[in-house]
């Protein structure tokens, strides 16, 4: 009678509420998820009050990283049967007398932003691992003396030819030099593009006139 027996079973917690909660959160995240696009370099965008969303298709994106390295990306447009990326790569290759195999072209179509001289392009496409790819990303050459014939200018020119609807989007880093960005802008203007989308983060600002 007087003995108090301590239950020897392992302490059990009821996991059901926890599962419920997880399930809820998981569903929420899965439904709202828009995956972060793979970026060739860490880019820390400046802030602005603009609430316009980045278009998802028909964009030529030029990244200007911290060290003023320039990266380039173009999407396939809304009609993937046109193989815009393949076309651009083949055309730019032709300018520099580099031919790509059909396998390389189709592999390139599925890849993301890049930044290397065109001569390293094949090596980048065929690179077996992500690490080796990263090493090759040295930036698209932007010739300072003759910007109109630099590789970036050709990329832009042929991208525009393959997809006339493509808009220019510039993703510059906070600490990038304006000079480097200006060069990119100049090259775009050389290709008769005068409207630019600058990628920024949203930052709310309240402004009121003091003495109305």
């Amino acid at each position: 009678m007087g003995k108090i027996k301590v239950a020897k079973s392992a302490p059990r917690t009821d996991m059901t509420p926890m599962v419920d909660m997880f399930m809820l959160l998981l569903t929420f995240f899965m439904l709202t998820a828009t995956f972060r696009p793979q970026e060739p370099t860490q880019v820390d965008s400046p802030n602005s009050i603009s609430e316009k969303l980045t278009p998802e298709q028909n964009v030529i994106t030029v990244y200007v990283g911290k060290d003023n390295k320039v990266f380039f990306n173009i999407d396939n447009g809304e009609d993937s049967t046109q193989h815009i990326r393949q076309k651009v790569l083949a055309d730019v290759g032709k300018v520099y007398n580099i031919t790509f195999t059909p396998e390389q072209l189709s592999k390139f179509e599925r890849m993301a932003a890049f930044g290397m001289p065109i001569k390293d392009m094949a090596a980048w496409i065929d690179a077996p691992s992500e690490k080796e790819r990263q090493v090759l990303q040295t930036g698209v050459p932007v010739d300072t003396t003759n910007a109109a014939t630099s590789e970036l200018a050709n990329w832009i020119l042929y991208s525009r030819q393959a997809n006339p609807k493509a808009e220019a989007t510039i993703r510059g880093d906070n600490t990038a030099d304006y000079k480097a960005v200006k060069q990119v802008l100049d090259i775009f203007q050389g290709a008769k593009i005068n409207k630019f989308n600058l990628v920024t983060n949203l930052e709310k600002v309240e402004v009121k006139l003091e003495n109305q």
Partner: protein
Amino acid sequence: MAEIIANEGGGKKKGKKRAKKFSTAIDMTPMVDVMCLLLTFFMLTTAFSKPKIMEIVLPEKNIESKGTEIPKWRAVNIILDENDRIFYYNGLADPTKPPIPTVIESDYSKDGIRKMLLDRNKTLFKQISDLNNDVLTGKQVMSKDTLDQRLRDLRSNDMVGPIVLIKATEKVKYKNVVDIIDEMAICNIARYSLTEMNSFEVKLLAKAKRDIAAGKTGQP
């Protein structure tokens, strides 16, 4: 033990013929593990704030546009310099047409360049914020397209607001340029443009910097 069963039964002691009940509780731990993993994955890969864009249109190159002469009283020149410094002067700097404007130093804070711009752009800013307020409070009902059109009209009909010319020196960071364009958007400046500095302005800026360093204020 008997007491516990009684408690669980909630006082119903009649049902003595009940079959022995097995606990239906399943071990949830692996499920929780998996969910936790998935949750973390989605949380880390989700881009929550979708990047926004700010549009700018630059004047076409290689076209010698005589353009419209900017009225002197409307012109505001903003010069961006390295180390986050910012200068401005009113009017147009032309060595052949004195008086030569004074270059004044300002800053990116809300009491700096924004105050000056807002002050210059009062009329248009008030019109735009009044219209926005009316729409928000429901005084005027209009679709978003109409509102955009009205705002565009207000901007293009603006005849008194400043015309801002933004100029940047060599070592300016990209952030500064975006900040100042953003400032234009905040102050609802109808007309602004990114342009190059001319040689006279370079001299003016150098002089202003010397003066400021020597302890004189920007004012004459």
